[in-house]
């Protein structure tokens, strides 16, 4: 009996529950499965098609991704003779690990985060910005020309969006006077998107670039470089490569909701009293809606060119991000006065 209670208290402790169940691994997996399905359904709706249907027909084919994932599981994982084998196998594991790590810093509800840090915003940004390194390694170790092209594109794109994301997020840090995400939510009497819309816009574009969603799915670039860095991967590792972008998108959407959409506010007190993590449902809903909007862009846009994305990053969104810092300073000074 004592063991069972100990186990339950272990699972329900924020240090385990947050990274493993919500908002971490299991929720991320569910998000992965449903957002890809939703993306395909939305695109199908716009394009006068039906979309995924045959797996669980009664529910509109919502389990299609699970079926695909199962198929990936049983597919042979081919390691090409010409690849750098240790790195080839190691890189996707590293990428997945780095993509899951941000959930260690993201608070799901007041006082409910695995790693409490006054610098949690920086923590999330730092961890997400290290994912491209693993992707670079994936591309380079594949020993394939298309994969190397993709890796180089990943490096270029990182240069294009990283500064924008960092500076526009830090502008919000200035506005709230804290780099702690939990504090930032508590200090949002006015949602950040109204407080500093420039920062929200620049961050949103940077987020789309970072997650590699249309119109910036340049790294995968199916029409030129097949799937870029992931071209030599097969089986479940290919699935991981596909899921990587969505994991990043999920982490960024949570961050966007925390910084600009007032996070879990207004807090659902009865649920929060039942179990603290349940108070984060509103945060999850907001993040999910942000994700749905990002995947909807696929039905509207094609792909920008690499140099156009770089130019946009440095000539349009970087100045915008700097402007948002200025705006934040003004907001802060006026707020104190």
């Amino acid at each position: 009996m004592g063991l069972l209670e100990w186990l339950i208290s272990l699972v329900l402790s924020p240090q385990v529950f947050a990274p493993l169940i919500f908002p971490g691994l299991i929720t991320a997996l569910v998000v992965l499965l449903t957002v890809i399905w939703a993306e395909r359904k939305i695109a199908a709706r716009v394009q006068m098609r039906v979309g995924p249907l045959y797996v669980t027909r009664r529910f509109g084919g919502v389990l299609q991704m699970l079926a695909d994932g199962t198929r990936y599981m049983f597919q042979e994982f081919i390691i090409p003779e010409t690849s750098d084998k240790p790195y080839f196998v190691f890189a996707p594991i590293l990428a997945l690990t780095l993509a899951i790590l941000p959930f260690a810093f993201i608070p799901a509800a007041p006082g409910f985060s695995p790693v409490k840090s006054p610098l949690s915003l920086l923590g999330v940004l730092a961890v997400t910005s290290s994912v491209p390194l693993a992707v670079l390694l994936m591309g380079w170790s594949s020993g394939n020309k298309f994969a190397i092209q993709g890796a180089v594109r990943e490096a270029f794109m990182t240069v294009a969006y990283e500064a924008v994301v960092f500076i526009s997020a830090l502008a919000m840090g200035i506005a709230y006077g804290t780099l702690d995400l939990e504090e930032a939510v508590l200090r949002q009497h006015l949602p950040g998107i109204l407080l500093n819309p420039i920062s929200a816009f620049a961050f949103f574009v940077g987020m789309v670039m970072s997650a590699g969603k249309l119109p910036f799915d340049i790294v995968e670039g199916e029409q030129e470089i097949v799937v870029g860095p992931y071209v030599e991967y097969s089986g479940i590792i290919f699935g991981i490569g596909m899921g990587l972008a969505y994991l990043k998108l999920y982490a960024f959407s949570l961050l966007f909701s925390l910084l600009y959409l007032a996070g879990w506010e207004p807090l659902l007190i009865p649920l929060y009293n039942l179990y603290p993590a349940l108070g984060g449902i509103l945060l999850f809903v907001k993040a999910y809606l942000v994700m749905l909007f990002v995947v909807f862009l696929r039905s509207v846009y094609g792909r920008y060119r690499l140099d156009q994305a770089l130019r946009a990053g440095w000539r349009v969104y970087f100045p915008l991000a700097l402007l948002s810092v200025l705006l934040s300073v003004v907001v802060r000074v006026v707020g104190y006065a």
Partner: protein
Amino acid sequence: MSSVSSLSGVALPEGVVRSRLLVREGGEEVYELFIGPQHPSSGHMRFIVRLEGDVIVSVDPDIGYVHRTMEKLAEGREAIKAIPLLERMTIIDSHNVTIGLVRALEKLLDVEPPPRARYLRTLLSEINRIASHLYGIGIAGIMLNHSTMFMWAFGDREVWLQLAEELTGARLTHTYSVPGGVRRDLPQGFAGKAEKAIRYMTRRLEEYKRIFLENPQVVARYEGVGVLKRHEASRLGIVGPNLRASGIRYDARIAEDYAAYSEVEFEIPTFEEGDSYARMKQRVEEIKQSMHIIRQVLQKMPSGPFFAEKYLRLLPPKLRDQVLSTGSLKFPAVFATMKLPQGEAVARAEMGHGEIFYHVISDGGSKPYRLRVVTPSFRNVILFRYLMPGHRFMDFPAIYGSLDYFPPEADR
């Protein structure tokens, strides 16, 4: 260690040959990529693309992957059987691709189609042209990863395929025109359906404009990319919409007076810019003109037989009555063994992709002695070499899409 050796292309001790990532020719900085034949956007062919950084140095189109010896096969069978064979060259545009052949055979056989047949040919040709352009626009869309344009164009193409099916009995392989006329008369109520399709398409073209042609992202990808100058276009012998988008008003429908094109009014749209954007707009404008032609053809459709008297007379009286009453022609054995008079004939026609040229030589047998086809895609393939260099690698699919190149047609 191994990342360095994978650059040099040497055989390693364990016998594994590392892929060569850099070519010696043209220096160390040239990066050679083989696009296709197994590639999402190559089509049935291969491109050898050389890059310096992100900029294309040269593109070699390597064609012939879907060569089906069409010309030789046509020499081995009766002349009339060449029609269903050759329409498989460009299955998306199968009436326009064979009408040139039918014209050449008619010249050899010295037979003229009756006016109603000429109008019916014009009708199907324009339906085919719209479907072909929609196919081209859709492929161009997906080459920019614009999946909505792709799905919309392919979905709306279905409207025109169904019209063609209504008229001919087949969605793609119509085999509609035969020497002396067409195989079927206009079905009941066709004009109403065509009018409905035209109204639908006119509305859809506006929506295409909003989602694709005037979408800032698409404009940014197309404008000023792959410029084909007017004098270059004429020097390289480019045909079809790609030529007209460079400002040259040439159309085989006017140049070679076939079907009923001299009796209907239509414009030949041209653009001066010659870039990918102009080529895309060109196709939309041509769809509008085709719909204009279809309306006129259905209004002006003359009455009378849809097949030449000369051949109708050869049919047994009972069969002749049946053909005239049902408006549908089945092939009696007399056509299969029909002898082509000795001599030669040439004909050209305007396909969706451009001008197609036929040269038929007969030695008096039932099979053609030689049947030569020059297809528009074969004439346009040279553009890959001329338009690509100097552009970014990501412009490659954009330019490819705008050219509406169809490999099976070029390879024959």
